[in-house]
């Protein structure tokens, strides 16, 4: 499985993700923006992801929900730039923390071997906002690893 590089440097307001996908750029771009595929990958694994709406064009808005037995968490934003198959620029806001908005840039680069490099950059309004976002990921990560452990146990039975 290819490696996703996640760069979270102390004291910075950004998070950078890099990943090589073994597919042409137009395919990677389509999978990334297609709302019908969003529920397959967008949220952490233990949540169901629901697309409330996604108007994938410049100035269009999106709203996704993550749902589990304990409740629903909503996120929304606006697409600032959709340049297929190269670039998506959008805002990202967790409705549980209104006013804390991140700017997300996704760039897709064609590579000579026919693979595609994705570089995702999220810039938050402050270092605290950035760390808060990663903190919410901590609980998810814990639950996620528990879920995987359960899967492993099921296979061993």
């Amino acid at each position, binding site marked *: 499985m290819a490696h996703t590089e996640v760069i979270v440097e102390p004291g910075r307001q950004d998070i950078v993700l890099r990943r090589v996908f073994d*597919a042409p750029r137009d*395919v990677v771009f389509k999978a990334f923006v297609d709302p019908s595929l969003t529920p397959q990958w967008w949220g952490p694994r233990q949540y169901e992801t629901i697309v409330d709406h996604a108007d994938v064009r410049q100035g269009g808005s999106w709203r996704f929900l993550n749902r589990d037995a304990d409740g629903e968490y909503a996120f929304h934003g606006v697409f600032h730039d959709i340049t297929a198959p190269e670039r998506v620029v959008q805002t990202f806001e967790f409705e549980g923390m209104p006013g804390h908005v991140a700017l997300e840039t996704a760039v897709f680069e064609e590579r000579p071997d026919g693979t595609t490099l994705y570089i995702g950059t999220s810039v938050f309004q402050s270092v605290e906002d950035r760390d808060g976002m990663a903190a919410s990921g901590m609980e998810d990560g814990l639950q996620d690893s528990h879920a995987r452990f359960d899967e492993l146990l099921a296979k061993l039975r």
Partner: protein
Amino acid sequence: MAEDELSVTFAALADPTRRAILARLAGGEATVNELAEPFEISLQAVSRHLKVLERAGLISRGRDAQWRPCRLETAPLEGASDWIERYKAVQRDRFDRLDQEIQRIKRTRKEH
């Protein structure tokens, strides 16, 4: 590690001078004067940075009243690093699932 301890750790790390001090201490104990040497800031400013690091538990100070050498304490760093690793695991998992969708589209295209 409690989340408020993590906030203190991250706040302490959110400064280039303090990170440079920690990097220096990773090479061994040092006095305030030794730590201040590479920086164009006053001893008082370095002392303030050391207080922040000490409150966050990232360094400890010796008992010798005059020299009080500083020492790196790695436990909070490990807590912060665990926390970031878990965040990274979630991101990797998401993009593994996106990859599955991409490979599915690619296969579908080849069949046509």
